[in-house]
């Protein structure tokens, strides 16, 4: 297996982008990534694109070919493959690209993610997202995505010490970081009051506990490590690529408040990299809801079950804390274009490890981690990157 490096990365701004179409979004991110890598279109050997539901959001399937075409690569006939695992589509797209380069099958590979969510009304997007859970036995009876994570929160708060204010602090912290990220959907700081006074979506989760509906795209370019310096002076090595699955329904999980797939993918990633949590300088976790960040910190092993709320309150996960979590603003403040999120997480780590993260820079960061969840934890992708 060959060592793999990221040689370039690009990302659109995230938000409600009414003047941008699905294909425009991807082309913008792709061009940014290729320019960053100094790679020309004809050098690309393969393309993977993470996308959850273009079929429901913009009534378009066959995304791989569409994107290769509008990226100007139709005449090169490159292999272009769509990867889908709900909100983990981007993470799996990145992993497929890593596997492709590591295997020796392809050299210069683009891993991208894109989602255009605002072309349907919010009721329709809620229903589309519910398809990430079990349509027959969760969605059919009226379960929404916030509702499922709310049931994790109810279970968690019944078993472990987590206060309403600690949960709100996750959103406050992520908005603080988002306010320092020029691509973030929300670049305003908020207070605990903002969260606890926002409207209830699914008890106990309120509007400011939830990640938003977002349009956006992100892309990164991968190459074999031994060729990386042909293209860039700042290659970032892929130290681990791990993936795990679990039951599709929340109710069938061994433990409602533990994402066993996060635990498994995290362990596999640390084993593959030969590293431990003490080596990680920063981590982008899948905070689709505030409770999800609490669970992720614990499930990846950064603290014991039941401690993440206190850690968050004490600032351990803040920009200036011991384990900065979601320096990009996370899904909560940076936004959550579902298929693009896993690639945006990699984009953030690349910026941090190159020292290009501006006002949210973690000084001296050399190893970063990404954690991307599909559904309520039925798929998890974890990556470790280092310089």
């Amino acid at each position, binding site marked *: 297996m060959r060592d793999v490096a990221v040689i370039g990365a690009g990302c659109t701004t995230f938000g409600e982008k009414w003047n941008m179409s699905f294909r425009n979004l991807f082309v913008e991110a792709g061009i940014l990534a290729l320019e960053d890598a100094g790679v020309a279109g004809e050098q690309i050997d393969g393309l993977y694109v993470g996308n959850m539901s273009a079929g429901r959001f913009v009534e378009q399937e066959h995304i791989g070919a569409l994107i290769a075409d509008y990226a100007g690569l139709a005449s090169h006939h490159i292999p272009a493959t769509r990867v889908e695992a709900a909100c983990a589509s981007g993470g799996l797209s990145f992993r497929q690209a890593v596997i492709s380069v590591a295997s020796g099958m392809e050299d210069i590979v683009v891993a991208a993610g894109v989602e255009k969510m605002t072309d349907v009304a919010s009721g329709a997007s809620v229903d589309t997202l519910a398809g990430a859970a079990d349509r027959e036995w969760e969605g059919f*009876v009226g379960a929404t995505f916030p509702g499922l994570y709310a049931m994790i929160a109810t279970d968690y708060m019944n078993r472990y010490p987590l206060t309403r204010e600690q949960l709100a602090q996750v959103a406050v912290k992520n908005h603080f970081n988002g306010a320092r990220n020029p691509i973030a959907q929300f670049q305003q700081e908020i207070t605990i009051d903002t969260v606890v006074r926002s409207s209830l979506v699914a008890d106990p989760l309120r509007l400011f506990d939830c990640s938003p509906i977002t349009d956006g795209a992100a892309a990164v370019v991968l190459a074999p490590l031994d060729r990386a310096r042909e293209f860039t002076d700042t290659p970032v090595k892929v130290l681990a690529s791990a993936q795990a699955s679990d039951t599709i329904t929340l109710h069938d999980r061994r433990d409602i408040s533990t994402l066993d797939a996060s635990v498994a993918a995290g362990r596999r990633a640390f084993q593959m990299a030969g590293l431990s949590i003490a080596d990680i300088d920063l981590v982008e976790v899948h905070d689709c809801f505030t409770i999800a960040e609490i669970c992720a910190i614990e499930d990846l092993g950064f603290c014991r079950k039941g401690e993440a709320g206190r850690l968050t309150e004490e600032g351990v996960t803040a920009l200036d804390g011991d384990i900065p979590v979601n320096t990009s603003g996370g899904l909560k403040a940076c936004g959550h274009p579902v298929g693009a999120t896993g690639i945006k997480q990699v984009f953030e780590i690349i910026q941090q490890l190159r020292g290009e993260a501006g006002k949210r820079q973690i000084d001296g960061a050399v190893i970063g981690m990404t954690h991307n969840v599909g559904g309520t934890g039925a798929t998890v992708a974890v990556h470790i990157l280092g310089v």
Partner: protein
Amino acid sequence: MSVARFWRKIPQRYNLIGTTCTTCGRYFFPPRSFCPDCRRAGNIVDYKFSGKGAVVTHTVIRTASEQFEKMTPYVLAIVKLDEGPRITAQLVCTPEEVRIGMRVKPVFRKIAADGESGVIYYGTKYVPAE
């Protein structure tokens, strides 16, 4: 949801027909035709659940998808059936009544409808049984 797709699961949705593996004694709802524990050594037969159980966790849905928008707020819960399986279902009670550990029993109810002239979907909800 198409008529055929709904119709084919009527035994489960109306009457809680699941399955059990006679090799290991584990119960499945919704039914599984392949035992994850015994795998090919498993022997799966139908089993009618009583539907009695207890609330494991819950929420109140206040923002719903299109089909359920007019029903908000409604109580949603994970219920552990007495035979072991857990299911997700709506509870017919007020948000103030629901609590973890509450005993519940099944009732036949309308779940949703495809607009004013479309298919009406029936199924099982749960009511407090204390």
